């Protein structure tokens, strides 16, 4: 019996997406192999990139271990973002929690101004997450997109309830969309299909929702594995996008972390 190393080669290529502009520009995606399968035929030109999380207001219920490295900086989002940069991050991820109707219901204008200031003051590309409230995000995220036109921010979550208005603003103002759907391959593809009717697919990053260990990580694990396989192995255009895992909050809100 002859052994031949079972190397594989695939047809699909994950689209290369660029976030940030000028010398801040960062490329993600572009691979035609599965994650970590460097032994197969193909390449992974852009390794996974790491961003640190910044909130637009001082966190109320975060654990001390998490906040300690940031010191006083957490009282000011811009300082907090700059502190993140000193840790060698590839990008900064700002979440506009204060705009959540269940939090301060802060207005869109102020949030957009903060994003603009942060984008101009930090040296790394900026990822911006709204509160996740699909109605409020439909006001806040288009405002952010307009005020920061041309910055090529990575903006989300774009959800099935608000993809038209948020997606349009992302398109018109030169940004990249985070298409978010709740842990389901079909919902994920459906949203991408709808979004890509007007937004070029190389301006879409998939957020399949991440879960913490012991709180459903197996769902995220298998969904991400499937998305990558359907994209890379079977060349399904609507899953050939890079994936973002926004997992800080998911992990730190668990009982064990606290």
């Amino acid at each position: 019996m002859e052994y031949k190393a079972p190397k594989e080669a695939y047809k699909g290529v994950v689209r290369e997406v660029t976030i940030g502009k000028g010398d801040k520009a960062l490329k993600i995606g572009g691979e035609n192999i599965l994650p970590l399968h460097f032994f197969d035929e193909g390449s992974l030109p852009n390794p996974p990139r790491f961003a640190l999380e910044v909130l637009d207001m001082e966190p109320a219920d975060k654990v001390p271990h998490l906040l300690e490295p940031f010191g006083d900086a957490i009282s000011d989002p811009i300082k907090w973002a700059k502190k993140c940069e000193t840790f060698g991050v590839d990008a900064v991820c700002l979440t506009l929690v204060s705009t959540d109707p269940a939090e301060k219901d802060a207005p869109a204008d102020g949030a957009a101004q903060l994003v603009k200031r942060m984008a101009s003051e930090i040296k790394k590309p900026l990822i911006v997450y709204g509160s996740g409230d699909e109605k409020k995000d439909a006001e806040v995220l288009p405002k952010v997109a307009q005020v920061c036109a041309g910055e090529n921010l990575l903006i989300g979550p774009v959800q099935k309830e608000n993809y038209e208005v948020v997606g349009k603003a992302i398109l018109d103002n030169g940004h990249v969309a985070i298409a978010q759907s709740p842990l389901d391959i079909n919902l994920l593809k459906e949203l991408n299909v709808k979004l890509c009717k007007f937004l070029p697919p190389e301006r879409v990053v998939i957020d399949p929702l991440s879960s913490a260990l012991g709180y459903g990580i197996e769902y995220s694990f298998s969904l991400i594995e499937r998305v990558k396989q359907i994209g890379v192995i079977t060349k399904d255009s609507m899953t050939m996008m890079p994936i973002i895992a926004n997992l800080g909050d998911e992990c730190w809100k668990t009982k064990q972390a606290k």
Partner: protein
Amino acid sequence: MPISGSEIVKMLPGRKPCKDCGFPTCFAFAMKLATGGAALDKCPYLSPEVKAKLEDLLAPAIKLVTIGTGDNKVQVGNEEVIYRHEKTYVHPPGIAILISDKESDAKVDEKIKKVKELQFPWVGLMLKAELLALQFESGDRNKFLALVKKASASNLGMILISQDLDTLFAARDLCADQKPLLYPITKENIDQAIPKIKEKPTPVGVRGASIEELIPLTMKLKEAGVDDAILDPGSKNLMDAIRDQTFIRRAALKQGFRPLGYPTIAFPCFMAKDGLKEILTASVFINKFAALIVLSDFDQFSLLPLLVQRLNIYTDPRFPMAVEEKYYEVGEPDASAPVLITSNWALTYFIVYSAIESTKIPSYLLVKDTEGLGVLTGWAAGKFTGDQVGAMVKKSGIESKIKNKKIVLPGRVARIKGELEDALPGWEVVIGPREAAGIGAFLPEYVKTLRK
């Protein structure tokens, strides 16, 4: 590579309906054989050669190997897929703690005790490590044998590690009936080892400097009738290990390559320099196919995440874990206790339950059957509509338990409030937090309004 029924039927005697196997035709029998629904013995007309050939073809692509005996045995192998979403992973990797005969008695006792006693209750299960890996390092055979004797008294599954073959078999002789794994069998010692293995058969760990080096070794073992093997491809670093583990799994499953159709062992204890890196290395092996994982040491903080990851990854993805539809009592609720509702996906239930529990406010938690979906997905799938939730609330009997007819609805499905109020005349529907994490802030305030 599984053999198909139509290939099997060509090898069967094809006697006009003898039906001695209990099936109407050879073809029907062959189809059952292919899916594991019938035993080959049922056909009395197979020649020994054909029978042996079929047995080999029908054997699982990855051999099932058992280490240890009784309640403490660890079974690995028999895996059928490369990616868990293709079907499911079957046998979670056994986790071992490494004990050298150079370690002090106190340390040895502590490590054995850890494996025996470090257990974590989790979602109705008890999570624990299960194996002792005993390493001959001191150069003093009697010292090693004393260690093996002590360890075998624990009745835990054992991995015996010795480069010196005589010491390895001397140790085996002390505990052969406990079915320890003997490691390493290599190209240098295999010829000497085979007759000794056959004296008292136990599983053996085969080590090569590469996958290619393993192949002649397992073929030689199999020829000698030794088929309970575990593979160590000698990967030098993590990237090589991912490659080797993946190639072995692919070769066994996709190429049907028998010489690599065995479970694998991984040694994060020899690959990483510090404890955290070692646990992270081990976590890679949980995802990437290792069947046995040997750690130098662990404590509750490093072991629990690994055990939970192993549980999660080896959960069958075809069946969402679900809990029963009914009302659950959190603490000891009375008639003025709040009533909350959620869906019956086990994760949702446990997260919501523990969020309520940590407020220390006795409550009723209603669980609506969504066939194991979360609240929002359940709603999207039409299993958490106002009508259905209303009917469930009525049927649950909660009404007779409480005096305030108020129910807290998860914020994510606030949109069914109107529908639910129509379905539940006399009830008030209150919109709760969107995430379970918000319950801690929400519930104490809400309870004040109930008591007014």
